[in-house]
């Protein structure tokens, strides 16, 4: 545009361009939309992160993407915390000693026995006559040796 334009020309040009105030409004509106959009995007990212934390999707996506090897490598230091030397296998002599001690001390479990009755022999023939099956043996012990 020539600096020596006439006023009429300038007025015509201004008539073709949008109103400046309106332009400013549109720019402002666009900026607002952009800011809002940015905030929304940020919220979405944060929500995804939160959701991933809650559901373990982060781990799942990593496992899907990289396999278990990466997770195992990261957890490896924890193994040192719980690792103990393997239990030593007993020698034959030790096993024999333990078995002998265990066998020697086996005891009954009385928990199921409510009552223990000791058998009492009924000597019913005292002072009565001995029962028939006892008579013969008693007679053989008879000092007199005489048969009844």
């Amino acid at each position, binding site marked *: 545009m020539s600096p020596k334009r006439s006023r009429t020309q300038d007025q015509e040009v201004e008539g073709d361009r949008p109103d400046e105030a309106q332009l400013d409004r549109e720019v402002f509106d666009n900026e607002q939309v952009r800011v809002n959009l940015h905030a929304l995007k940020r919220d979405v990212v944060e929500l995804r992160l939160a959701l991933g934390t809650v559901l373990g999707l982060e781990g799942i996506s990593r496992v899907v993407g990289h396999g278990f090897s990466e997770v195992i490598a990261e957890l490896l230091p924890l193994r040192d915390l719980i690792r103990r030397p393997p239990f030593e296998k007993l020698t034959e002599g*030790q096993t024999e*000693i*333990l078995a002998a001690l265990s066998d*020697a*001390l086996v005891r009954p479990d009385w928990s199921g026995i409510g009552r*223990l009755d000791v058998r009492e022999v009924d000597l019913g023939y005292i002072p009565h006559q001995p029962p028939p099956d006892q008579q013969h043996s008693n007679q053989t012990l008879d000092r007199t040796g005489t048969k009844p």
Partner: protein
Amino acid sequence: MIQQLVQRIVTGPPAVTLDQAGARVLGADPMDLVLHMEQVLDTFDPALPAIRARSTLWGTGEFSALAPPATAPAWDHLGYAFVLENTRVVQIMRRVVREYRSGEGLGVPSVATRRWLDTTEALLFNASNPFPAWLSTSAVRTDPESVRRNAYWRLFGMDLAFGTDDNRPHVYDKATAANITFVPLLEELLFELWQAISNLSNFSGVNQSDDDRIYRIAEQLTFILNSRRQSRMLLREELVATTVLGWMELTLSTNTPVVIDLRAQATSPGDRLKIIGERVGLAPHTRASSFFSMAADLSQVLRTIESGVITGPGSSWILYQTGGGGLGPQSRRVITEWSAATGKDLKIRARPVEVRVRPIETDGRRLIASR
């Protein structure tokens, strides 16, 4: 020996039920029990010359066919007798015998109870039958309880928790050579075993079990226990003590004739003893139930330690692992009941073990590090 004898009768041959086997032992003649005891001792320890007459005699006993294998002592460790005697069962039963023998204050005993009285007098109170129980007493050491107290003192450095029947101090020959470090060592071992047991199923966090320390303490216990056992010392005394206390345990294991005659039916040995104690005016130890509960397990743990089967940190697991020959359940029971009986919580360390480092001279100052 008594409970093991019942078990051998159960397994036979011929196999019988537990109540039949228990009744057979409970109704046995005391002389048969005495003879079988000699047989059990000789089976394990033939180094002692068996007198021919005696060996002929035990061959005639009722239980002669039930000799145990010679691979290990077929009776409990002296620790079993110690914890059972701490219930005060012997002194309570002494009063029962006295009452029954001197009158009818407790009622008229049944035939089975009279047999029990015969056996109890012979086993526990030194009645001649025809010889005193297994020659562990004599004119020199007349009181069987004093003989047992002497053995407890020598092996464990401990006295019973009570004095005489009438609450006077019990006087007995106290040996100068006694394992007075036994209790601190055992309690330290139980603490370490609890750490190991509670870490057995750990998948995260620090594992605080220390196999090397368990081994070192167990080794020390083996040394001091075996030092009192040189040349098989205390073998006969141990067998006598565990047999008489085993007789008491069998008496209270279930509702036996004497328990029924004393109207002391209950569901546990501790409760039966408590009722009997009330009948004769002598209360048992307040923690009697704990003593009954841990007696057999303590016996097995001590026998294992004493056998020297734990030869290094790699085999410490025997004392806390479950299955595969491990004594985890037994150790756990001892930890729980020992804590209950002594009032010491073995699951937490009361105070850290003091470790004194050798003093170092630095700039004229003596530094002693401790933790």
